[in-house]
């Protein structure tokens, strides 16, 4: 077994899934990129998708002891890497 890193958008994380922030997409304005970084969504930070609430509401993410809700526009522009255990090839 070894770990393979899978790159995806924060929005694609399933509830309970954790990942490491790797960067930001161009679609996110500089001011909002700065804001989410101030919240702790910095490259290298460990983030966990906590909930996918009802009513199509923005998703809920946890960083350390803080909880934030981000909508699709922001969460699709935050890139993360998920470490998935995969079978080693023969």
């Amino acid at each position: 077994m070894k770990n393979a890193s899978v790159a995806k958008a924060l929005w694609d994380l399933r509830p309970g899934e954790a990942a490491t922030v790797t960067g930001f997409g161009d679609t996110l304005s500089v001011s909002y990129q700065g804001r989410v970084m101030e919240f702790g969504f910095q490259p290298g930070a460990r983030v966990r998708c906590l909930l996918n609430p009802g009513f199509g509401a923005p998703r809920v993410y946890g960083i350390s002891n803080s909880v934030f809700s981000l909508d699709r526009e922001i969460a699709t522009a935050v890139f993360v890497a998920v470490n998935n255990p995969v079978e080693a090839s023969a």
Partner: protein
Amino acid sequence: MRRVLLLGSPNSGKSSLFNRLTGLSQRVANYPGITVDVASGPMVSLTDTELVDFPGTYSLEPISGEEAIAVSFLNEALADDNVCHVLCVADATRLEKCLHFILQVIRECQRHQKPVTILANMSDVIRDNQLQFDPIGLSEALGVPVISVSARESQGFEPLVECLRDGASPSMTTVRNWRESPNEILRGTAQQLAAKFSPKGDVLINSQLRLDRFFLSTALGGLAFFAIMFLFFQSIFTWSAPVMDAVESLVSSLGQAVVPLIPNKIIADFVADALFGGVGAFLVFVPQIFVLTLVIGIMEDSGYLARAALICHRPLRVFGLTGKSFIPLLSGVACAIPAIYAARSVDSPRQRMMTYLAIPLMPCSARLPVYALLIATFIPGDTVLFGLVGWQGLALFAIYFFGMLVALLVTGFVSKASKNKQSEQPFVLELPPYRLPTAKPLLRNAWNRCQQFVTQAGKIILAVTMVVWVLGYFPNSGADLGQSWLGTLGHFVEPVFAPLGLDWRYGIAILTSFLAREVFVGTLGTIFGIEGSEENMLPLVDHIQASGLPLGSGVALLVFFAVALQCVSTVVILAREGSTRLALSMLLSYLVGAYLLSLLVFQIVSVLF
């Protein structure tokens, strides 16, 4: 007077600290961005020092109106020679979201040569959850003093007060210069400091996740939302009913005891009709304002309000609003004026404008006396389900729901008509931890709101009822109200209100209510007081029932008051926060809309019943 600035990230407990240090009652809630204006007051321990509470902000690079105000005020304040110290509040349990702001504040203070101290709040939560926090290490890393405090338990204030009293910060072994550091450097430093000094683990998240799974789920969360809203409206009637009855009895008994003691007939008539009839009729509804403010406070303090904003986001976007509009809209249920200020927290100017459009349609507490009066006139006070659900509460729920529905339809229509996707901003919101509401600040806040309501609206009501009484009493000493000056004026405007089935007395009351909606009750109280006999001071509801007001007219009145913008103060604040054009166009369009809708409703109800 020396001034000390109190800054901090939203939801860091800054306003709670302000209240503890000043003994004042700045509004506190467990929701980011509840302080939208600057408050100040002398410190309890240092009476020569004024503490200034700024709106919470995550950064000195603002993205919302409230943050722009905080930054603008801060720049002005730092140039003020009277400012002797800056206190920056951080939530010690969530340092990672505060450190960038802290570094920015230290940099600006160093540039202006102002001493700064970091107050690491929530030391009680750190202790209770056995988290590790190193204030000394953080202090060394930042180069400024860090004091652990608990606003909730009033702990850790002694070193702070000593520091402010001496006018000198504790000596630092390490002095760091942040003056020339750009934001990028500060952001990187904040990340490193967060990794080193933030309490490790996510124990606090896990404890609130179970509640979030319930309150944010589609089925149970939706049910909980509607149940909470339903109980909210029921409580306004059922919880306050005993106190309302007591106030009504007290006003009536006091009137019957005092009026006979006044020898002069004109003064006696004035006291009976204008004071006890007019102002007294309005005072009866103050307990409902208390309950309304208390219940909203409980929702804010518990942390539920942020969750409600979250689950409302998608539905509200359909109508051109955002989840962040939910808080100003719910505040609008208490009063439109703080709600308009609260709309500063909406990032997008367009969505903020839509929020402005919706706020005056929220069923504010000034409408409550009018609604309560008309509902009590037509709906029996019976209850079902062991007294938990009353027909009057259901009727209030319906008219409140109607106001909100109209608000959504208006913003939905305007939004669709002026579609501009570019101006919408993404949604990002901090979800504060759930907390058990504390009774004392909630009760104090509700009490203050009642005092404010009575003193502000009471002055207008007293002035209007005096004018109405003079016009209604003379020239025939109250012998025939129809032939009085008021009657002459009323008959002149009667054709406007006749299509709604309303006679001139209601027309006059509606006209006076454009100063403030609750004046309607005081005016009617005065008019019926002049008409009624001196010996029999009936409650206003009995007078209206005896006047033969048709059901259709009663419902039309409810609809008219639900839609019309009858509040001078709201128009002025809308002009200040939005624009004069916006305020005047809203005043006119809501007035025309209210009249046409109430006319339609009167016709329908008259045909059906």
